[in-house]
């Protein structure tokens, strides 16, 4: 780790956005359909799956980091990918943290619909992709809440990304791991600068999502 001025703040912020954005996109793309399906289909083993999701929502990130590290380690099952200490590893860890949140909150949003929702939609003559779109439309506030929760979990997370990313300057340093490092080094000015950017980013994204959510009421 460099003791000098270090990597420019803007590069760290952009990398954070790229890694977290990729993780959020993946978690939502996988988690929302999974949550919707889990929410309105009844099949054997569903209860166990729901319990797993709920447990996953409280999974300590540091444990996720350990498990991802074990998988990606040179001798691990995915070691041949060579992804340990790369942004890909950080994305995997963040998806593992965010996915249960997205699935769980989506599930709750579907559960809040009337019990005969699907029957009524069918009785209205709406089938197939249009019925799926209605389901998304009716649960959209819950889905936005899922996205906000996932974003919060991903952006603020430090343990797992440091474990599997390594906080390598110019490669895997993100805002949170940078703050951790500078604080440990006693370079509070740098830590504060990164923290300010992180806070600003969180605020701007949360505000944007809230605006979308408010707008969707109309």
């Amino acid at each position, binding site marked *: 780790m460099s003791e000098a001025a270090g990597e420019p703040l803007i590069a760290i912020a952009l990398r954070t956005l790229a890694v977290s954005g990729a993780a959020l996109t993946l978690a939502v793309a996988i988690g929302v359909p999974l949550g919707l399906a889990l929410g309105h289909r009844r099949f054997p083993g569903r209860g166990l799956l729901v319990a797993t999701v709920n447990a996953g929502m409280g999974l300590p990130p540091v444990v996720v980091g350990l498990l991802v590290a074990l998988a990606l380690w040179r001798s691990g099952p995915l070691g041949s990918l060579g992804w340990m200490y790369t942004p890909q590893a950080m994305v995997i860890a963040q998806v593992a943290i965010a996915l249960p949140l997205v699935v769980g909150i989506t599930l709750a949003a579907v559960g809040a619909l009337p019990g005969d*929702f699907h029957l009524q939609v069918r009785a209205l003559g709406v*089938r197939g992709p*249009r019925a799926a779109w209605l389901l998304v439309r009716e649960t959209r506030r819950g889905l936005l809440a899922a996205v906000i929760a996932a974003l919060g979990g991903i952006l603020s997370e430090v343990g797992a990304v440091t474990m599997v990313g390594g906080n390598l300057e110019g490669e895997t340093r993100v805002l949170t791991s940078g703050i951790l490092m500078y604080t440990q080094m006693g370079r509070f000015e740098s830590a504060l600068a990164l923290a300010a950017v992180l806070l600003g980013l969180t605020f701007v994204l949360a505000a944007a999502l809230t605006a979308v959510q408010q707008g969707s009421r109309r």
Partner: protein
Amino acid sequence: MTNDAVLAARDLVIEPGARAGGFLLRIRDLALQRGEVLAILGPNGAGKTTLLRALAGLVAPREGAIEVCAPRGVALVFQHPLLLAGSVLWNAEVPLWGRGIARRERRARATKALARFGIDALAEREATTLSGGEARRLALARAFVVAPDLLLLDEPFDDLDAPGREVLVQDLGSAIRETGIAVALVTHDLRQALLLADRIAVLSAGALAQVGARDEVLRRPASAEVAALVGMSNWLPGRVRARDTAGLAVVEVAPGGAFRSATPYASGADVWVGIRPEHVKIDADRSDPNTVGEASVETRVSDGALVVAWIAWHGLRLRTHLLAGRGLGHTLKAGDGVFIAVRPEDVHVLPREAARP
């Protein structure tokens, strides 16, 4: 199916819904003609909702066939209609959107449907902010928007107050007449069933106990249970005693108390005698040729429109209905001595094996 038939169901066996009594629903024969309103009446848990969902094609019967001749479709309005997030207009558009109809046409047809039920002024309102009555109107407008051939209604007036119900019944009645649509509605409430029905089907414990023209079912219920459900509240055990000079049977229901009836049952037969309360006539001056003798008013209650009086007669209590506010309905009071009269054609007689309610 005949030319005018919209629906014909035969030998159906349907799995019960979650709220039904756990028995299989068995429907031997049920048909519906164009322009006809059939009320399916039954107590809670009789399987009404399950039957309606099967007729709508939402639940597949385990056995039997449901033939539906409805080229423009079938619309089902649930007991608690789902209102989707968005405007009233959007809600009315949804069935057309589901059928892939272009936005411009959708809007025009949805606006027309809303106008039919008097809520076109609410088109831009958020649907979830509607009152119970407005929501009910929206659900009906949404059902009519596709101009279906068959409309199925689950307890359509249940959550409305009496004035709102009357106005809605009028609007729905005109919509039915103008479109010539066939309607099946289910309800547990006889008075709601009677508001629109041409025919009544009585569903009890998973089977149709009787299907017939409205007046036929009201006047000639096929069993004690149907009698209770359609409000034939005077239901008395009796025995056919003799024939009078006109050939009418004299049916004794109490020592010294008898009604005359055109029943074919022979003397000595044990029977049930059913008389609708509105057919027990209070005869103040003993002028009615169908008099059945002296009686006294035991109690009297009135809701302002109808007077319900219980009359003591030969040790029995007969229920009678009068219009409130004028004539006897105004003057009658408990303790009054009166005469009562019942026309022979209003005395319904069934053999005793039919169980008492």
